[in-house]
């Protein structure tokens, strides 16, 4: 159809070259640093090969961080998708077109906030003495509750903020997806007197299987970026209750000991795990 042109090459090669350099250099360097024993501010270093990685597996704080990250991933992904599907279906079912537009605007607002802002907004809200969310509990029991200082509750409080940002946005996307479906199957089901939830459970949601799986995939990737929320809200505490892998890598590399190599070995493990897992998942989603 098109005559020969240099456009594809000219438009592809420079950008791909830059992307490859910008992504491969840090990746290769991360591996090299992980095999050394660098400490920030100290010039001497040696290759220690795999000893950082071996140390990791006897480091209880590392194992705890792996567990916290896995919990975080499950809690936030499942809660986000649940909130999104329930709210999306409710909007589709019950809201007038005008209200739908209104809710869509409203539900996009939280995700636009910088994570640092979102974290502060909710940190104020959960403040044991002056917080607006904790106010009813204070008013009834007369005692302050420190949910962010509670080892059992803190992770879930932080997860709430994540779901507040992403679940509401995804609800808008679920609504848009529902609106793109052909109306005939829905009308047929209504003629058969199917109930609202039956229509969605048996007809619409199965029709949206592929895009919903892609959404879940996107959320799984985004959930890995929880550092800013946790950094502002709990700094990994109380104790190590909310210390995810990136938080632990950060504190090993920068705050506590400046053990850059040790931190990098953690980061490399994370990188390998995420690239392998997501590549497999992505290929599956595509096929």
């Amino acid at each position, binding site marked *: 159809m*098109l005559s020969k*042109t240099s456009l594809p090459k000219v438009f592809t090669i420079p950008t791909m070259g830059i992307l490859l350099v910008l992504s491969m250099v840090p990746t290769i360097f991360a591996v090299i640093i992980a095999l050394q024993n660098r400490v920030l501010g100290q010039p001497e270093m040696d290759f220690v090969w795999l000893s950082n990685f071996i140390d990791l597996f006897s480091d209880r704080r590392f194992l705890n961080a792996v567990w916290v990250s896995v919990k975080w991933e499950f809690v936030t992904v499942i809660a986000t998708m649940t909130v999104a599907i329930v709210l999306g279906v409710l909007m589709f079912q019950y809201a007038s077109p005008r209200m739908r537009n209104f809710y869509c605007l409203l539900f996009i*607002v939280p995700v*636009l906030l910088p994570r640092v802002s979102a974290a502060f*907004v909710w940190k*104020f809200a959960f403040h044991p003495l002056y917080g607006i969310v904790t106010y009813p509990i204070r008013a009834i029991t007369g005692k302050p509750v420190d949910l962010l200082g509670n080892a059992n509750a803190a992770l879930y409080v932080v997860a709430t903020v994540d779901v507040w940002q992403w679940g509401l946005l995804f609800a808008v996307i679920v609504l848009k997806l529902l609106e793109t479906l052909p109306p005939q199957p829905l009308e047929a089901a209504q003629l058969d007197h199917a109930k609202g939830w039956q229509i969605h459970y048996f007809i619409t949601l199965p029709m949206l299987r592929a895009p919903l799986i892609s959404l879940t995939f996107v959320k799984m990737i985004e959930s890995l970026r929880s550092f800013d929320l946790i950094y502002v809200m709990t700094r990994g505490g109380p104790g190590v209750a909310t210390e995810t892998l990136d938080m632990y890598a950060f504190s090993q590399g920068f705050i506590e000991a400046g053990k850059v190599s040790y931190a990098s070995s953690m980061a490399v493990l994370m990188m390998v795990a995420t690239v392998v897992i997501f590549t497999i998942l992505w290929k599956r989603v595509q096929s």
Partner: protein
Amino acid sequence: MKLDRILGNLVLAIFGFIALFPLVWTALNAFKKNVDIISKVPKFFFTPTLENVTYVLGRHSVMAGLTNSIIACGTSVLVGVVLGLPLAYAIARYPNKWSADIQFFVLSIRFLPPVAVAIPLMVIWLQIGLYDSLVALIVTYSLITISVTVWLSIPAFQRVPKEVEEAGFVDGYGAYAVFWKVALPVALRSLVGAIAFSFVLIWNEFLMALMLSSTNAKTLPIVASELSQQGMNVPWGILNASVVLLSLPPLLFLGVLSGFLSSAFTRRT
């Protein structure tokens, strides 16, 4: 039937409230005196003060952070546009055996854990002597803006009707002129959405900025987070005001992004 309608609308209204109320409350607190914030019972009525806002805007560190944020975000978004849009167009219009792999590679940049990128980059920038400079931040951020721009612009270019572009060829345009004079203007509205999205993402970025800057290149999110560590006597009003300042720029794009979402999901077949 009637009952579920009422219940459904009630749930929606509650979530609408949850979406906005914490923000409204923070904005209100930005205009309160400290005594009004740390009262036992939340105060909805108070005499507003501009003290917090003027304090925040008057601080040197805040203004420096704001300038850094604007320069770093603006430049890297521009780099993303200049390099990303052509690549997206080439993938959308001239698919070949590499296209799927390129698309996957661009997406896979999102898989990289930010710490895994930030640690080696910190070591590299330290060695070159560019640590804590805007150049380092811009180069790092460009990786993100290019990949986001490419990823979101491919569908925007694919939605440009082929016939429009063919008409351009018939009129005697070459491939570059068709891109510049036909595809870009037609796709412009969706492209603006994609670009706005990459801006918001970079404006909100925290971890890289935290690890790649120490004094000179700090961006606004870092400055805002540091305000919270000022001793025991927490300046609540000031904190709230700085949160509001930090949140305003991305919120300006609310309209653009909601339009982008609608157009991205309605023209499926």
